[in-house]
């Protein structure tokens, strides 16, 4: 007889941070109907409150102060609540909170203050959280859509402005296109292993007969297509072309959030599928996973292309778009390094550390753009940075910190992230790609430091406005960037116990 599973069978408590957030989003959606247009700050506060509750829960769980639920699996293995999930949750929730802070005034002055902004933000955040916790291919896909669809809407949030609508359309079409590849890839993986559960996939791969070429063929294609679908989300070359157009067209507050959140979700899912699901998928008794080579090739291409094109950009948002592509490349190094079982844990931790560092730095950088952007979305050119140090010394100092961190100068969080990723790469014998990483970092100094130069040594109006919540966000980001830069062990301690291995 079929029995309805109870809450404790489902082990809902284990998924508490995500569940709280998802339910909260549904509730706020209804509540928002009763909030008058001119008082949307209520919705903003509610959203921030929901995010904070979830963040506290995730932090408690990450630091092992409280253990939610019974064991690490919920919803019959569909949801995995381990340290990895907790860390992903913390990163995306911090990003999301900062996202709400930077959005509030921006929406007000650009006349976009509509409640749906906030709960769409909550939905995509929930999507990221589920991606990080996915224990099943189906969850990976559903969560990806939960992440993507609100982002499509948010990208076009500035309707009826043409640029915004155009970018939303582009993002949507290409997103749908790449999602198809992902589904196809997941289906092939299912075909090869006969299951969609990651743990069972791992077991199936383990027992896969070495010479079973057709199964290998399916699995390889499946892994490759998953890489494509998720690579699109994180803006890896050659699936990156949408990024500059979308970043330029979308409202800046959305970009600040999505440039980090989509990456967090994409990489979390990539790690779940590749590193947790098929780390043992080796061909011909090799020592590294079959998907490793293509991953590091993508990483190398992404770093090179991203950094090179960024040099010639004259618009800040476009420049940071290419910068974000380049950073996807650095993170991909970590994913590739995880292909060597011996360094899988170290590499996974490196990726999370990088993402944490990147979250503070990148949201901060975009917040500064929000501060200089005019109500009609103009003044985002590089020239808007000229003379900023004179008119807005604190803002300029914060921007300088973010730029140094993106470059990867020591004593900033960005350096810490790069350090761990390169260290993992060297441990995994991926020395060429680590070298490319270091060289392209040097290259990136050219355009990052040019911004610092313009702020401090060139004359200009340097107009900017930093009302309260935005200033908080910039302050928090700058402090986070510096604190993690000065005290790197905070990050490495946070990630120390994370492992993706099943049965480990």
């Amino acid at each position, binding site marked *: 007889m079929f029995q309805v599973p109870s809450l404790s069978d489902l082990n809902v408590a284990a998924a508490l941070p995500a569940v709280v957030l998802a339910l909260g989003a549904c509730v706020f959606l209804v509540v928002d109907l009763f909030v008058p247009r001119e008082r949307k700050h209520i919705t903003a506060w509610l959203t921030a409150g929901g995010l904070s509750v979830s963040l506290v829960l995730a932090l408690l769980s990450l630091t092992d102060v409280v253990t939610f639920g019974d064991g690490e699996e919920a919803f019959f293995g569909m949801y995995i609540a381990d340290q990895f999930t907790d860390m992903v949750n913390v990163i995306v929730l911090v990003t999301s909170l900062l996202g709400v802070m930077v959005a509030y005034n921006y929406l007000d002055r650009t006349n976009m203050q509509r409640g749906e902004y906030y709960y769409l933000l909550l939905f995509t955040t929930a999507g990221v959280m589920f991606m990080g916790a996915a224990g099943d291919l189906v969850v990976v896909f559903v969560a990806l859509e939960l992440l993507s669809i609100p982002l499509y809407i948010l990208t076009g949030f500035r309707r009826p402005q043409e640029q915004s609508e155009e970018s939303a359309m582009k993002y949507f079409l290409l997103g749908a296109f*790449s999602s198809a590849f992902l589904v196809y890839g997941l289906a092939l993986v299912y075909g090869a292993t006969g299951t969609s559960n990651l743990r069972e996939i791992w077991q199936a791969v383990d027992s896969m007969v070495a010479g079973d070429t057709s199964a290998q063929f399916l699995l390889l294609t499946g892994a490759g*297509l998953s890489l494509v679908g998720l690579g699109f989300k994180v803006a890896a070359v050659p699936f990156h*072309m949408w990024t500059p157009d979308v970043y330029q067209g979308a409202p800046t507050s959305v970009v600040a959030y999505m440039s980090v959140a989509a990456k967090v979700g994409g990489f979390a899912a990539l790690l779940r599928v590749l590193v947790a699901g098929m780390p043992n998928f080796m061909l011909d008794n090799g020592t590294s996973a079959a998907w490793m*080579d293509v991953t590091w090739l993508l990483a190398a291409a992404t770093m090179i292309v991203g950094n*090179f094109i960024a*040099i*010639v950009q004259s618009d800040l948002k476009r420049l940071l778009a290419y910068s974000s592509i380049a950073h996807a490349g650095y993170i991909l190094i970590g994913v590739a390094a995880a292909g060597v079982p011996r360094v899988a844990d170290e590499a996974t931790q490196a990726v999370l550390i990088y993402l944490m560092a990147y979250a503070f730095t990148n949201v901060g950088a975009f917040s500064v753009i929000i501060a200089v952007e005019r109500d009609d979305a103009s003044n985002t050119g590089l020239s808007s940075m000229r003379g900023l140090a004179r008119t807005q010394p604190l803002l300029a100092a914060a921007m300088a910190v973010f730029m140094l961190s993106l470059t990867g100068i020591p004593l900033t969080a960005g350096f810490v992230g790069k350090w761990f990723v390169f260290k993992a790469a060297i441990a995994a014998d991926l020395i060429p790609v680590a070298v490319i990483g270091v060289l392209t970092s040097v*290259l990136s100094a050219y355009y990052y430091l040019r911004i610092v130069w313009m702020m401090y040594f060139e004359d200009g109006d340097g107009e900017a406005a930093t009302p309260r919540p935005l200033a908080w966000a910039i302050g928090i980001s700058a402090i986070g960037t510096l604190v993690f830069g000065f005290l790197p062990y905070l990050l490495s301690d946070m990630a120390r116990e994370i492992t993706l291995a099943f049965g480990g």
Partner: protein
Amino acid sequence: MENFFDLVPLVVFVPLVGLLINLFTGKHLGERGVGIVAVGASGIAFLISLLLWLAQVDTGYKPVVVDLPLFSDWISIPAAGVEIPWQFRVDTLSVTMMMAVTFVGTVIHLYAVGYMHGDERFPRFFVYMNLFLVFMLILVTGNNFLMMFVGWEGVGLCSYLLIGFWFDKPGGVGWKNSDAARKAFIVNRVGDFGLVLGVLITFWTFGTLDFYKPDELPMAAHHAAEAAEEPVFAPEIPHEAEPHIEGPMGVFNQAEVWLEEGGHDVNFGMFSLSFESTITVITLLFLLGATGKSAQIPLFVWLPDAMAGPTPVSALIHAATMVTAGVYMMVRSNVFYHASDAASFVVALIGATTAIVAGFIAVGQWDIKRVLAYSTISQLGFMVAAVGVGAYAAAMFHLVTHAFFKALLFLGSGSVIHGMEHGHHHVAHGGHDHDDEFDPQDMRYMGGLRHKMPRTYWTYLFGTLALAGIIPFAGFWSKDEILLDALKAGVDDARLEGYLAFVLLVMAAAFTAFYMWRQMALVFYGKPRHAAAEHAEESSNLMVYPLIVLAFFSLVIGVINVPSGFPILGAIFGEHEFTSWLEHAVTYAHAASFNVLLASFAVVLALVAIYVARAIYNDRALETLGQQDPLELDERTEGLFAVAKAKLYWDDAYFKYLIFPYRRAAYWLAEQLDWRFWHDYVHKTVIQKNFHIATEFLTQPVDKGIIDRGFNSLGRLMQIIAQRIRVIQTGYVRTYAWTVLLGTLLVVFIILFPVIRGMLGL
């Protein structure tokens, strides 16, 4: 009550919170708010100390080590074996210090609210005062030498900040104040250098800086615990090493074991010393530290100048608490001092000599606070001498009683100064001539204040009698114990320093009584000698009530340590309670029994000295007092007075033999060596010229020609490449979709490549 001990971090944190509140919101709180916060913080710290005391009593005086959460690995370098945790130590010694510091501190904070009224930097003053409490409490509660050192430096800093608190007074006074502050800081640096060196050698020798590890008992305390029923006087010193202490040991127990075993050497790399000699070196270096902070010969010169600070500062820091840090440190290290006869000899002589020298100088001073400053130095000399003759409990006892009556005297003098300033103000506004010569601290302008400020007078009298050592005031008990112990060290243990210290200290005691009564006479008796004194008024209640509290304690605090064999009082209050209490933390504390002969001798001597003072500074002498002292007018004492007035030429000698030669050497080095030789010749001729030639070469052909051109071409190349790649960024979705598709095919091809190759048999 065991868990009361966990409160001990709060003793430090509460004043810290208080100072942070005042630091950030002091401007808005107003004087009243600032005062409440500062006094409250100090008061709460006192209450916590009180609880700790109760807990100590309740748990049988067991020493406890409390970890500070988050800070427990303060300095930890596992590879080098360096482990210095941030731990608080609650034992009878530290609780004694905590109670004295916080109680006197609270009373003085309260007084300061009245004293500093109207000062433009009122909040800042209390921030510094609370900061001082924080550091002082770290100093006395730390469980290792390094924490003690942190507190030691911290109180030094506060002392500096507060001495120079009025650095901006007009008319050159500000300069004098800041000079005094610098002097204190620099002189203390000499002492601190000794302390640091001592601490470093301690670490080198023992591999740890902890006094005792957690759960470790002082060795002699075992005995005390066994004989808990009857208080142990002169506890037996353990002559068998006690190897049953397992695990790591703190420095003191290690020292006990090593001394017991004998024959150990400490290797210092290039040479090695026997363990006993090492202890002597350490203790002498510690003594150097103590001579700085506790103002002993030869470093005492800063303390009189330190009176430039506001009077509550003089009372709290430069009389009652901070300056006793050196004594505390030596009592804490009593195991070391007990082990080294040579060091004890030096300590006793330094202390006793300081006592007599400072007592002598005090006779020749005109500034009311300066007299008290020299008196403080002299009394600290008593304590240090007590340490030297092995009377650690007596030293602590005198420290506690002295804290009360010296704080009282300073606060009283502050009240007098306040009254004089008030009177002067009154005169100045009353249309009289405003004379610039007037100094509210100069006793020559005072006189007759007994009737103007009766409450200040009575409390001051109490303080004077306590300091002079008249029975039953507090000073009598503690001073008597020190004298007795000194004599006993001479007679019983045949130690030369015992006799020497006894003789010097008895003379110092006589001087004490004499100069204090001189001060009483000059300030309070006779008739007013200046219009300001004529119009002086009693200070506000906020200032007078603390005086009364302190006067009460100056009268009665002595009963905490009634010597054995004392009639009546001993039966009521118990005999040497304080010593028995200290024995649980201070291994070599021992009590003395009462000696009628000596006590009577000391009291009679003090009374005689007072009588002599009364005779010299009689009403007639006071009435005709001009700018000169009666002693100066009498040709028999003229010379001696001049010497005392000139502070024994001590400061002058420093100037003449240290500072001037130092300056001359510095000038010479600056002029000849640095400017002529180093700057003109080496820099300009040798380095600059050659450097020019080298840089010229490097800039022109190398940098501009090769490197710059190379990088410029590289940059241009990059831009060209970037422009090329950028072309495919068309903005059309179809292009993007095509690239995605092509990329996908590429990815799939690459990932399948090994399999395809296998299938094709390549």
